[in-house]
């Protein structure tokens, strides 16, 4: 996605949101949903639209772990590592996932921890995009990888 198209789509997102009180987070969410990340050089555009400084917008982006300023891997798997899932083997699942994806191309699939998807009675759980998976056994994880077409 070249920079010019970025600026356009960001501009339309901003204009649709900027008059809402506390509009920064909604704007950042929409940009990340549209482009997969928040381009650092769009921060000036966002800041001036909201009459903030670049530093303030940068401070907010770096505070929240959900936001990222680099393009994401093709797939991102967020595995819950909180206590409930730990009690049902989340750590083993993370190890398994890492081994399983070791062979995959760089930038193909990234495994990230997340702290609680609210599926604590059906642990261990993970989320791919907005798709949830519960009681994930290593086998179930492997099937999921195949369905997602990730070559390892």
């Amino acid at each position, binding site marked *: 996605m070249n920079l010019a198209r970025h600026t356009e789509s960001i501009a339309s997102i901003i204009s649709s949101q900027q008059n809402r009180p*506390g509009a920064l987070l909604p704007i950042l969410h929409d940009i990340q949903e549209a482009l997969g990340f928040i381009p650092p050089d769009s921060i000036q555009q966002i800041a001036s639209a909201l009459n903030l400084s670049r530093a303030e917008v940068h401070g907010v982006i770096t505070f929240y772990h959900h936001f990222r300023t680099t393009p994401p891997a093709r797939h991102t798997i967020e595995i819950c590592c909180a206590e409930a899932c730990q009690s049902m083997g989340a750590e083993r699942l993370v190890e398994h996932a890492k081994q399983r994806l070791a062979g995959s191309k760089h930038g193909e699939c990234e495994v990230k921890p997340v702290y609680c*998807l609210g599926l604590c*009675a059906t642990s261990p759980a993970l989320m791919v995009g907005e798709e949830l998976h519960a009681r994930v056994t290593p086998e179930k994880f492997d099937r999921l990888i195949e369905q997602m077409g990730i070559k390892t």
Partner: protein
Amino acid sequence: MSIKIFVPGDSAALALGADALAKNILAEAARRNMAVELVRNGSRGMLWLEPLVEVQTARGRVAFGPVSAEDVGALFDANFQNGGKHALNLGLTEELAYLKKQERLTFARVGITDPLSLEDYLAHDGFQGLRKALTMQPAAIVQQVTDSGLRGRGGAAFPTGIKWKTVLNTAAAQKYIVCNADEGDSGTFADRMLMEGDPFVLIEGMTIAALAVGATQGYIYVRSEYPHSITILNEAIAAARKAGYLGPNILNSGNSFELEVRKGAGAYVCGEETSLLESLEGKRGIVRAKPPLPAIAGLFGKPTVINNVISLASVPIILDRGAAFYKDYGMGRSHGTLPFQLAGNIKQGGLIEKAFGVTLRELMYDFGGGSASGRPIKAVQVGGPLGAYLPESQWDTPLDYEAYTALWAVLGHGGIVVHDDSADLAKLARYAMKFCAIESCGKCTPCRIGATRGVEVMDKIIAGQDTEAQVELLRDLCDTMLNGSMCAMGGMTPYPVLSALNHFPRDFVKKIPV
């Protein structure tokens, strides 16, 4: 005459293949040219049975679970649509002990109604509370909530009535109602289940709050890890607004209340009320100094009611059935019910709404059926990642705010995470510090530096390096964090750490080859 089949749309069910199941049922019914009305209800809360399919029969709703997409053919063959015999047939849902022994007030409709059907909601006493509130003076509404004994269900357990009263008595051109749906505690999903199972009750509760304190704008701050809750809430809000229960002229009473969902962005600390307000204002989720209290100077500096999903969702029934009815449940100063969430290494995990006073043992064994692994239960963390670990000796204490405070434990948001004897409490104590280091907002020193040092001290203890001195240092650090921190993040991380240390000392001394 068409057959009514219920397949839950709750995230837990979706995570276990409910969508594929629903598709298969419709396809199979079409193949057998049967007229079927499929309802995507909320979850009944018996999560080991999800996806739990129900069928409307003359005798009542018959439950089948856990159903996988492959079972559909066999179910139809067994005439399941009329409650026919089948291995998965669990009999009438209402008769299931797990449900029957609960006192479902806040969660009365969850699993029963179609979450997005206004008629379904109205048919189950929906908006009665609001209609009554519309006939009352704001102070009278606040009085009802105060008399009901309702306290903050997010974890602080602050009397909701008093909070509302402060906002009512603080004059301002603009006031806000903020719903804390960040639900970052591990082991908790009550907010999620309610938002996805009965969004209208939350909307009704917030509207009543608005009437009570004179607010015209409300926000629901939902964590980014709950995409489905956000979708369902937005649809419910749109439906409620179209039908006049929200918007410029609620039930042409002249009162206006607008409601908007806002998405969090991966910060546990934004569950703390002032950090949440900073986040809503589009800033870093840094904890504010108190005073001023949010009730006086909250969102955008204006008086703000900020309550948890369950607190707000419990208001309609209080207004509908009266304060005394709600107060009658519970014990001591813990009135009403709490939706406990049984999770972790448990055979029958799920949502159990009970009056205060029930014990941990009853929940874990009578409801939970013991550990999922079959091994003996060693420790139970109650109240999320900042809750204490309880050894067996404390499982008979009644679940009551004051009783738990006496144990140096907390009820918190009602999350119960069960660990069997394979759990190493030193590693869990280390995780408590690690979690605090990951989620600390970084403003105050005890938490910003303390959590990171806490992990390092725990590593030395686990590695057996001069354990005694390190344990003493750990206690000092916990004292600094407990008393020095600005908020519960750093202030309560010592609860799991010290409870693990005090109740399971053996885990802290054994030498593990590095």
